[in-house]
């Protein structure tokens, strides 16, 4: 019931007015921005918060006694509380500001170096982004632990029976993305978390692609670590968050040494600050942190239920239109997926199509999407990826389809 009510109020034309960049022309054509899985666009409301910060209360935080520093500190910490509330974390000190998803993953991987030993096993999914593969490979090199891969099927879904078979008493960590960036598959993380916990393994979920489309409840999921980036959720680049259960964040050693993260320093010994500051060495991205909170406010005002419903309409409309094109091959046909479509047409190279689409003002991503193992599975060099956000429209999809047909004609 609630869903319908929110969607009735959802008006894409009003929403589009919030995004100044959508008025741009590229190569003389109105911009059609379908590279949202790489980065989302920023609404005026968030831009205003950034301008206000630098115009009115830019200061270093936490230690200053002067008014500006206190204002900046208050805004930064309020933002942490907004993030806590959004993800339903039990405590605000379980929210660590990071520079983004990659930073969060590296922080956890680095922390686990002192907790793992030879014979331990780490599971990652076959659907991972390179940033959720490489840090674990490095961790395995440091500790002697072994990295094992949960395989996927042709549709781009994880094979859960294989996951069950891989789990054992030596499994210490499981890493999986909530949603695949290359294919859009929504992974059954509830199942994965429950099964992993039965063997005492900790689970880190990469939420970079899920947070723009849904609202994760970290307590309900019972997840140990959850990471994301603000720039995928209408916020600025260079800021993100790591959620960690208090018991894990207390168990992990600090990631970087420096200011902010200490309680007391002598040349003999340093005692570390309490959470969350233990993991936030140096002057943070104050403005980014504040704008991150503003971005969540913006998304929540529209409503994630309405967003998800509208984006599913876009996905199904675009999938239908694309499927009519001769030679079309869509990669990633999971039953549960978000508004991401990865595809190729005949033997045309994705780079050629991406180049021609750009001439017509359409921004898509081409290449391996930093997920080469997935491309290897399908034995392709890459795909064209169109990814939609709630500010995109069916009319834009029509423009994209017409442009794609023209590109195919030119390149065949």
């Amino acid at each position, binding site marked *: 019931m609630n869903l319908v009510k929110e969607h009735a109020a959802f008006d894409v034309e009003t929403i589009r007015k919030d995004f100044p960049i959508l008025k741009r022309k590229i190569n003389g054509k109105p911009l059609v921005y379908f590279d949202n899985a790489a980065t989302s666009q920023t609404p005026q409301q968030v831009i205003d918060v950034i301008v206000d910060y630098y115009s009115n209360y830019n200061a270093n935080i936490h230690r200053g006694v002067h008014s500006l520093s206190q204002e900046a500190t208050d805004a930064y910490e309020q933002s942490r509380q907004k993030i806590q509330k959004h993800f339903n974390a039990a405590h605000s000190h379980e929210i660590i500001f990071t520079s983004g998803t990659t930073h969060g993953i590296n922080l956890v991987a680095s922390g686990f170096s002192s907790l793992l030993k030879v014979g331990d096993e780490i599971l990652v999914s076959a659907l991972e982004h390179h940033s959720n593969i490489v840090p674990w490979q490095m961790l395995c090199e440091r500790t002697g632990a072994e990295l094992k891969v949960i395989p996927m099927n042709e549709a781009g879904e994880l094979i859960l029976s294989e996951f069950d078979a891989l789990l054992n008493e030596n499994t210490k960590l499981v890493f999986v993305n909530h949603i695949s960036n290359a294919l859009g598959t929504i992974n059954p993380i509830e199942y994965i978390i429950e099964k992993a916990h039965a063997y005492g393994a900790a689970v880190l979920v990469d939420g970079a692609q899920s947070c723009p489309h849904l609202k994760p409840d970290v307590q309900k999921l019972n997840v140990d670590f959850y990471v994301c980036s603000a720039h995928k959720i209408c916020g600025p680049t260079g800021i993100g968050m790591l959620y960690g259960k208090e018991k894990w964040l207390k168990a992990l050693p600090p990631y970087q040494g420096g200011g902010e993260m200490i309680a007391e320093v002598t040349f003999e010994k340093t005692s570390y600050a309490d959470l969350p500051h233990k993991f936030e060495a140096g002057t943070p991205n104050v403005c980014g942190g504040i704008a991150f909170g503003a971005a969540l406010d913006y998304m929540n005002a529209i409503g994630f239920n309405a967003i998800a419903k509208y984006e599913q309409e876009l996905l199904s409309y675009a999938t239908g239109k694309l499927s009519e094109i001769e030679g079309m091959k869509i990669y990633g046909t999971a039953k549960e997926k978000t508004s991401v479509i990865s595809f190729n047409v005949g033997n045309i*190279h*994705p*780079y*050629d199509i991406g*180049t*021609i689409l750009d001439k017509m003002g359409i921004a898509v991503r*081409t290449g*391996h999407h930093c997920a080469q193992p997935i491309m290897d599975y399908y034995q392709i060099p890459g795909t064209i990826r169109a990814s939609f956000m709630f500010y995109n429209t069916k009319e834009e999809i029509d423009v994209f389809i017409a442009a794609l047909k023209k590109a195919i004609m*030119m*390149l065949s």
Partner: protein
Amino acid sequence: MTIEDVQKDIIDEFSMFDNWEDRYQYMIDLGKSLPLIDPKFKTEDHIIKGCQSKVWVHADMDDDKVKFTADSDAIITKGIIAILIRVFSNQHPKAIIEANTDFIDQIGLKEHLSPTRANGLVSMIKQLKMYAIAYQTQLN
């Protein structure tokens, strides 16, 4: 013909087009005239490194002139490398090393110079010039 003469011809050809469609269509057609690399040279060490499309280049020297052959798995890239080879092939290594490549801007392909285009023109030009430098060293 000197490198400058060839560049001038290319600029003249591209100046006939007043829209991007015709320009790209012409480039795609030029790709079809590319002197193709012998398949035995389509190996890892002939690839110009990049993350989008693959480009293989091979060079030979005959009568103090460098001759290039190439291929790519993307059609537009094939067109781009065909233009470069038309400019640089059958030239003395010294002329290739000293050649200026401002003509790219004049034929409306400036966007391919962007550093985000892995496999862009920059690395192709660099690779062709590297071959020329190697052959120039032999001549010295």
